[in-house]
């Protein structure tokens, strides 16, 4: 069941479609997200390394990396030099892509059912509610997934958070990184190095992963 959690995040982070309308249309946007990911990448008969590349491209187009990375670092982001910001964003982005590439590679047999949408308290975002259901609901009970969608200043929709079973990806990163920095004297370079070492380990896993989806 828990595998599905990772699958979900993989789908939202790596699929992309831009809807011209925001209010009332966020569900359509997310539906398109999931369809593109499932049919456009998951089903492709290519290696996992190739899929990671494809995800990287989609990730750039359909998520707001600036928002996600800024929130993940919290106030610390504002104190960084431009060079430190860029290096953190690069390592963070790679980390997301590689991690979810690995996770999504393990999953199939799930589909989304959309259950509604609500506007956030601030009025800036729309939360799209959905459930992931599998063909065997006894072994894999449905999982609640909420997608947080925001338009950027150019009117383009972006996924800025995914809440799976009440766990917000954004909030989890923020608390984790704040705790890490607090325990390491606030040194951003230690965090960047840690992310890079994790990225290297992920790349190795991707190279060695059995190609379940190939052919």
């Amino acid at each position, binding site marked *: *069941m828990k595998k599905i959690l990772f699958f979900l995040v993989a789908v939202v982070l790596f699929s992309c479609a831009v809807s011209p309308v925001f209010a009332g249309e966020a569900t359509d946007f997310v539906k398109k997200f999931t369809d593109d990911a499932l049919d456009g990448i998951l089903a492709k008969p290519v290696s996992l390394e190739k899929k990671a590349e494809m995800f990287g491209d989609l990730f750039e187009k359909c998520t*707001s990396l600036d928002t996600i990375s800024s929130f993940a670092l919290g*106030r610390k982001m504002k104190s960084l030099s431009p060079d430190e910001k860029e290096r953190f964003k690069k390592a963070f982005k790679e980390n997301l892509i590689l991690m979810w590439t690995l996770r999504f590679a393990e999953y199939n047999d799930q589909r989304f059912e959309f259950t509604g949408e*609500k506007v956030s308290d*601030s009025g800036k975002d729309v939360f799209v509610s959905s459930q992931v259901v599998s063909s065997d609901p006894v072994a894999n009970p449905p999982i609640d997934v*909420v997608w947080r969608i925001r338009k950027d200043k150019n009117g383009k929709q972006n996924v800025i958070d995914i809440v799976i079973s009440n766990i917000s990806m954004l*909030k989890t990163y923020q608390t*984790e990184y704040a705790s890490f920095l607090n325990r390491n004297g606030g040194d951003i370079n230690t965090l960047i190095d840690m992310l890079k070492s994790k990225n290297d380990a*992920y790349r190795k896993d991707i190279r060695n992963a059995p190609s379940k989806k190939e052919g």
Partner: protein
Amino acid sequence: MRRLGLVLVVCLFVCAGCAEVPTDPDALAYYNEINDPMEPLNRKIFAFNHALDKGVLQPLARGYNAAVPEFARTGIRSAFFNLREPVNFVNSVLQLNVKCAVSSIIRFFFNTAFGLFGFHDTAAEMGLAPCKNDLGTTLAKYGVPKGPMLMLPILGQTYLRDAVGSAGDYFMSPLTIYGLDKNPHDDLWKVQEYARPAADAVTTRAQFLDVTDSVEKGSVDLYASYREMLYRIRQKEINERLGVSAEEKQQSYDFDVEDDDL
């Protein structure tokens, strides 16, 4: 005199484990919400639990997953859940949740009699969905605050309210009541007291190996990651059982996200 010594040791332990209160407003809000004032001590216990998990529980759980086919694992989980049905029933009654109380008691007798002691969830196939419940949720319903976070040796992360609730659930279990007047050398008593919780721990751990492997591979601060995730999962569990409105549920993830960079 011995009592005084104990108090001093406890004070020393608690003071050595007090977390620094943050001054940043956002960090302070989170500190108050997560309520982990004994973080330094909790981290030490977490490190011990994690080592125990790596060295003992994980190998057993991996062996169990490798040796036991999936249908049998599902059945074993179902049988363990069946043993909890009386606890679910009592707590549903305490929460005045008639639907779940009726469901739990019927499920217990039905699955015990016709579902191989719960190995097969026959009642679910007939439309009686399981209602998991516990005393921590009952206490929450009647306004008891969650209290500080605790990291218990072996048992792991919980809150004071849930720890008290778990102890209460243990004593209201028919199996515990059965064992209370038993000779400690009684074989069945030994199974109930030692083998059942150990088997329950291994089968539960086996269920979550994939997700914990993934978290451990990706996390830069494992303690902080698990603390956040387990807190949110428990919050959702209680909200769902108590029928909290969709608006209230949304509050837990509708935090402010600045768009300076958009």
